[in-house]
């Protein structure tokens, strides 16, 4: 029973953050379908940040900064270039998934990429874009 509760808390906690992100975007009237991409960019940046700086705090700051940059790109495309938020959001998600896959391979090589893919896989499996989008509708 304890295990179940721990598992629920463990997989639910990240959802709270991404849901808050979805709520904020939804309040502003934008469907942020790029949340999935932002999450994976954040996960990848954290791991690379830990490797570079050996510090959790710095790694989290780096991850936040990277996600803010990606978000600004999405804002620019949607607001300034008047792109369709849904297609652009899906594009950012694809960019995040593809970009981090590329970065994994260059950083860790093909063999160790599996290890990181495991970490990323965990993130992706428990937070499909669908869920992020649905959470934002609430």
């Amino acid at each position, binding site marked *: 029973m304890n295990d179940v509760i721990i598992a629920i808390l463990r997989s639910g906690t990240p959802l709270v953050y991404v849901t808050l992100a979805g709520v904020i975007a939804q309040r502003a009237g934008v469907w942020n379908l790029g949340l999935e991409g932002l999450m994976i960019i954040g996960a990848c940046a954290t791991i690379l940040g830990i490797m570079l700086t050996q510090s959790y705090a710095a790694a989290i700051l780096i991850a936040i900064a990277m996600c803010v940059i990606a978000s600004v790109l999405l804002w620019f495309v949607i607001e300034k270039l008047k792109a369709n938020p*849904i297609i652009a959001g*899906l594009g*950012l998600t694809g960019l995040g998934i593809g970009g981090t896959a590329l970065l994994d391979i260059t950083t860790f090589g093909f063999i160790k990429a599996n290890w990181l893919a495991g970490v990323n896989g965990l993130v992706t499996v428990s937070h499909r874009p669908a869920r992020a989008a649905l959470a934002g509708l609430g």
Partner: protein
Amino acid sequence: MRDRAIAILRSLIFVAFSLILCAVVFQFAGYNAPQMLTAVVDGAFLRPGAVEQSLRWALPLFITAVGVGISFRAGFFNIGAQGQFYVGAIAAAFAAEALRGGPAFIVIPLIFLAGMTGGALWALWPGLLKLRSGTDEVITTLMGNFLAGLLLVYVTSGPLKDPSGSGQQVSSRPLDAAYRISNSLGLSPTIIGIAIVVGILMWVLVNRTSFGVLASLAGRNGTMVRWQGAKLWQLGLSSFVISGALAGLAGTIEFMGPNGRIASGFLPTHGFTAILIALVANLSVVGTAAVAIFFGGLASAALYLPIMAGLPAAAIDIINAAIALFITARSNLVEKFLRLGRRSS
């Protein structure tokens, strides 16, 4: 004519933007961007056999994308081509299983019919929800994609599981050779013929029938069309059904042609690419054909890169995603530039 040229130029400009963004990402990830892009062009069109391979991917993509374009024209943001494609393939596989052993000239059309019906039904429920209760079709069709993906996993590991199958990937029983419409390379006169027929029929439907004209008017201004006395309800539902049927047809072609079976997780991003094709082509049928060849080339390059050039296939995902990011954009600067060109010409 001039407006059309401007629309084409606009698409090209934003695709160029996207490729620049890709080059930046490649450099950032530690690759040589020019080398990467050359390898993509090489894998898509230049290496021997590449053109056939690109066409093999372009034809199902074209059929799906034309369908997506039809519902987009009518103002319905049906992003569920992926799910309709899957359900079409699943329905076709069930039909093939049920009709096993019958004469080919009866069985093959019936499988096609089943596949198209499957795709159409998977587009029908979001359409009904949208038109009867105003449910947002973006969310329902997007969710439908996940449902269909899971349905595929269930079907291939449950009712249609190949009992003799071993190994990591579960799949259905292979289709009898008599019912296959192409070999595993996936290019045959039948498939090309189907694509041409679909292209012509849809061009006529969009440009030369009252349905096409009314549907694209309804996409721009639904209220006006309703005041003119057209039945928005029928128009909307028919565009959903047509786009679903075409996605289902593409799924059936993949099943009966190159794949010969359905496996869990086959063709993961087909539907998404089709949306991109329709948007890059500005929803025109002729444009869709041209753009589908470009994206078919990218799909074929995705298979070529890791094996022949030693570069990761994720590069193609990035190109697709970057195009998605920019393709619906309308920038004042670009518009000004386009109009400038128009005045001087």
